[in-house]
């Protein structure tokens, strides 16, 4: 019976529809990994806040000096800052920047890093040596310092932050995918594909790449939390998103620092927002790693 089921699954078209399989997979994930589920919930909550920002909060840049330094109240439920801006509105809009930068920088950085790693492993030889030496060099510059230097070169804007934080992630994804692809490249199905005359692109993308997705996902999901912290750090140092756009790191930066003792809400809420968001991504990433990496299963 079980064997028959297996054969059925192997027969394409006999599998349950994708939607059902995804639903079942999700339910199993949530039941087996409660911490991961909590992480997913936090991420979901953040996405909803970011999307609904214009509906649930006012204009984050609107200032009103007569309302400055107000403690949290029913009107401003996270209080106001030194120029009377609504901190809640800034937090909710900051979530947009954090998510935007986090997701796009991982997609760009870990994505291109992974593809480069795949090519590096597949072509080997000179391509591999040159690329790996460049990755060595990129890894030898402390990430924050590299991001700072790139920001200095490109100038402050949201998309430049995406680029800077993305570039910083390239070497790690490159290494992980490369080492996996090196092993897969010599496997029998890859050799078989070559023997029936498949081209380089076809072997790389259709045969080797799917085997590299799991380790890549682990690195990429861990990168999300790091990317959000990096964005906040850049804005905190005044080298990130321009101050006219409210960001969590920017709210904690030099401009507000002298008022923190006077209005602690200015320091407390953005910090909680960053920590909670990164915590959510880390919990989720950890659970994902446990599920995807069989060697770590149960540890």
């Amino acid at each position, binding site marked *: 019976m079980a064997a028959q089921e297996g054969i059925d699954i192997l027969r394409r078209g006999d599998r349950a529809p994708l939607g059902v399989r995804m639903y079942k997979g999700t339910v199993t994930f949530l039941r087996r990994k409660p*911490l991961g589920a909590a992480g997913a919930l936090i991420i979901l909550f953040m996405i909803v806040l970011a999307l609904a920002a214009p509906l649930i909060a006012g204009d984050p840049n609107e200032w009103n000096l007569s309302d400055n330094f107000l403690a949290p109240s029913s009107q401003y439920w996270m209080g106001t800052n030194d120029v009377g801006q609504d901190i809640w509105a800034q937090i909710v809009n900051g979530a947009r920047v954090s998510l935007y930068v986090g997701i796009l920088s991982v997609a760009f950085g870990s994505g291109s890093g992974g593809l480069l790693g795949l090519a590096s492993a597949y072509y080997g030889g000179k391509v591999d040596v040159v690329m790996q*030496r*460049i990755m*060595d*060099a*990129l*890894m*030898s*510059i*402390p*990430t*924050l*310092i590299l991001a*700072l*230097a*790139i920001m*200095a*070169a*490109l*100038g402050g804007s949201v998309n430049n932050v995406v680029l800077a934080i993305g570039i910083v992630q390239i070497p790690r994804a490159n290494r992980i995918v490369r080492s996996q692809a090196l092993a897969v490249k010599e496997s029998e199905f890859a050799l078989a594909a070559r023997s029936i005359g498949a081209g380089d692109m076809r072997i790389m993308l259709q045969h080797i790449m799917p085997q590299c997705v799991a380790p890549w996902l682990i690195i990429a999901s861990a990168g999300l*939390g790091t990317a959000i*912290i990096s964005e*906040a*750090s850049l804005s*905190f*140092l005044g*080298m990130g998103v321009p101050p006219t756009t409210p960001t969590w*790191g920017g709210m*904690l930066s030099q401009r507000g*620092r002298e008022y*923190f*003792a006077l209005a*602690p809400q200015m*320091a*407390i809420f*953005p*910090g909680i927002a*960053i*920590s*909670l968001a*990164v*915590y959510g991504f*880390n*919990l989720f990433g*950890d659970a994902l790693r446990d599920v995807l990496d069989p060697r*770590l299963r*149960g*540890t």
Partner: protein
Amino acid sequence: MLQYTLRRLFLGLLTALLVSIIVFVILRIAPGDVVDVILGGEDAFYSQETEELLREQLGLNKPLYEQYFIFMFDFVRLDWGESLVDSKPIWPQIQQKLPITLQLAIMTVSLAVLFGIPVGVIMALRQDSSLDYFLRIVSLGGLSIPSFWTGTMIILIGTLYFNWSPRLEYVSPFEDPRGNFIMFLWPALATGWVSQATKARMMRSTMLEVLRQDYIRTAHAKGLRYMVVVYRHAMKNALLPVVTIIGITVALTVGGSVIMETIFLLPGMGSFLVYSLSRWDYPAVQTLVLFFAGWIVVTNLLVDLSYGWLDPRVRYD
């Protein structure tokens, strides 16, 4: 062993060379310019001739590759030049600032190791107990709470409740050991809290892996005391991957110093770098980044060499 070390040193030099090229290129494609800074910001009014003259004096009118070779030639001869903006020589400044960053790094890593490794071992020994879950949540918190916020909150709570604020002046450990220690303790705690998390997590998973090995069962079966099995047999082998992580931390603290030195007003290499970067001070930034890169390359080499010492199975060839 010697051959391996030499090969690694050669690769390290190659890496440093590439780093210098990368940094050089990044700085020169920047829209900002040191000439603007010297002449008083972008809004200042100055004639084209003044600008040309200044460029010529600073050697910035030469072709890029020539500028690069001049920089590298001087760097290799340990003639690290002077700041373009205030003409202060760079090397004495590094001599002054390096001990500060070094002390911060050493204290951070020590705190991280002292907390992280025992916590990781405890988590592994009590796997899936409520203690394990509690420590996992706390330790993952270290990874999630940005150090610049921890630092900010330490100062905020100090100011609000204890009438304490970080000292504005650096005290040397030789003049006032206690004052110096307290000065570095808080920033070290703020970053150490982050890096203990990576250590604890790594320790936990390698320890779990080792505890399932056959030789551990044998050790238990032959009647060794529990603690002997844990420390002498399990922990010794589980520590190896953690050493890599410690090496990464040593490298990371250099980057982290940028933020901690800004918050706690420590005049170290990190704040020097941010300051130089904001003024487009090419020679200072290039020298500092190369310095940091050298630090990381050497750390990585030491980590790899330590494998042979820790694990007799590792052979270098």
